[in-house]
């Protein structure tokens, strides 16, 4: 056996801490990203989901999207259904991947990884930060996979749209991954991803004005004529609604709400959910 390197004496405490935090956040982020790209099932989902929604559902419903209520054309919708649903599909992909990343927290907790970092000199908050950052990056990537279908959806995208879109996607992904971590913390026995999909992802998605416009005539009064009150209320209360609206504004320049609302609510979600997740993580 060859000689091994001698032990290093402690150097500057502060320099060590900075090195641990920077290196550690990077390592945890990189692990999340590598792991996601090596998971073929997850990648397949990231590709197939937008294809299903845009090419099948979008194309299928496209002819029926005409502002027609009970057989009578009452208003003119300035967008095709494909264009309308396209930004929402991005949000759906982010939603799935963020929650999937958060589910891995359960595995980390049960099988090792978390223990390994808990006995490392990484301060706790940065462990969670690295984890959420990694999950959000992967989710943002999956969200941007949908952009490939922009041609089919007849959505012209400029490079500045892509840049601002990526920013919005990341903000949304960060908040949703944190939310996923909060939920995962409450799960003691893990029975599979299906529960998450049915209990969290789909309700949030369908109630976010993703597959139908809340107000096709662009008037608040019209909304209540077309849809029952409770549905309108649920959609308005769903924070994801404003994220979808923001993405829609970014890609097809159609806002149902005040354009400032989206980024503010997304940033609020990111801060609030990460804060809660962090408080819980420190307590355990």
């Amino acid at each position, binding site marked *: *056996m*060859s*000689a*091994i*390197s001698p*032990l*290093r*004496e*402690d150097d500057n*405490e502060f320099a*060590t*801490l900075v*090195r*641990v935090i920077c*290196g*550690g956040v*990077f*390592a*945890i982020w*990189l*692990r999340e990203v*590598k*792991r996601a790209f*090596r*998971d073929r*099932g*997850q990648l397949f989902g990231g590709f197939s989901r937008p294809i299903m929604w845009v090419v099948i559902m979008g194309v299928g419903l496209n002819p029926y999207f005409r502002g027609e209520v009970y057989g009578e054309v009452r208003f003119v919708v300035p967008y095709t259904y494909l264009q309308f649903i396209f930004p929402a599909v991005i949000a759906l992909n982010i939603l799935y991947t963020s929650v*999937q990343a958060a*589910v*891995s927290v*359960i*595995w980390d907790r*049960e*099988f*090792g*990884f978390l*223990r*390994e*970092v*808990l*006995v*490392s*000199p*990484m*301060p706790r908050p940065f462990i969670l930060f690295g984890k959420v950052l990694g999950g959000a990056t992967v989710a943002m990537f999956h969200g941007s996979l949908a952009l490939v279908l922009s041609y089919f959806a007849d959505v012209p995208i400029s490079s500045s749209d892509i840049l601002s879109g990526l920013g919005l996607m990341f903000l949304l992904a960060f908040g949703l991954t944190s939310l996923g971590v909060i939920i995962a913390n409450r799960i003691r026995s*893990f029975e*599979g*991803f299906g529960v998450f999909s049915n209990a969290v992802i789909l309700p949030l998605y369908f109630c976010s004005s993703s597959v139908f416009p809340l107000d096709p005539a662009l008037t608040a009064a019209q909304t209540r004529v077309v849809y029952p009150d409770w549905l309108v209320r649920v959609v308005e209360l769903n924070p994801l609604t404003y994220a979808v609206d923001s993405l829609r504004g970014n890609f097809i320049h159609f806002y149902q709400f005040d354009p400032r609302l989206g980024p503010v609510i997304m940033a609020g979600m990111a801060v609030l959910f990460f804060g809660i997740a962090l408080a819980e993580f420190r307590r355990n």
Partner: protein
Amino acid sequence: MTSNSSRQSAAFAFSETAGVEVDGLVKRYGTLLALDHVSFNVKSGELFALLGPNGAGKTTLLHILCTILSPDEGRALIAGADVVQQALRARRRLGVVFQEPSLHDRLTVYENLEFHGLVCGVPAELRRKRIDEMLQVVELSDWRERLVRTLSVGMKRRLEIARALIHDSRVLFLDEPTVGLDAQSRARIWRYLHELRQQRQLTLIVTTHYIEEVEQADRVAIIDQGKLLAIDTPSALKSAHGHEVLEVSPINVDVRAEILAQHSGQIVKTSDHHITLKVEDGRFIETFLSAYGSRVRAMTRIEPSLESVFLALTGRAIRDQEASARERTLAFGKQGGEHTR
């Protein structure tokens, strides 16, 4: 000359504080007292074994020393760093090999070590050097670029040991490092540990229930119900608490009944074919032989072992705990949910 002597004195000062000090540790879970004022010291470079049945407090103790749990009372120092007040510093000085697998399955051998090095703040150059060295020590250099999920159980364990030494760990905790491994892999792991111990002044704290592994420890601590029952070298423990026994097989049931009646006070255990008697003094074997020499089929004199020390102190056999670790491994396999790992 001066620099040489100062280096020596620095090394001396360092080894003085490189061990583990445990002082009056108490941990309660509700009303259950998991650790009851446990105190001991482990010297730098020592191989220290923790022995105790399931639920004895071994894991709780280990988790406190690894800074995962905090104690209710008392304190512990790892290489001079307090595990509560200076947790981050203590963590830079300790390495852990957990009982349950804790590697990243979807990362390669190299990536696992790199991850650990980054998380522990090992500077880039030293990190690369250590990874190469440690892979060589545990003979996994050829497996560097392989995904960890393709490794055998023994190889994974070796990788975990290598990982715990990528940073400047002075104290290495090993929780059942050889459980579930075949004899050859176990011997291999111990060879690496002994080599590393010499080269790096490493303090090793090990829990195991392979009695032959405990025998090679410098000192053994026996824990039960949260209390430290005994702490000494294996030979001192054996002479203090162990006893020599005589295992005899009587030729028929009459002889068996006679021996059982005559030596009722010395019976350690009985089975269908054997009676195990405690050897109380040097002359016992002689007198026993003259009385029953022609009426026993076989007779074996058994030297005191740590197994008998353990039995004498806790009233339980060490082997009792083995099921649990295996159960956990089995449960792990059954879960099989690799998809999200």
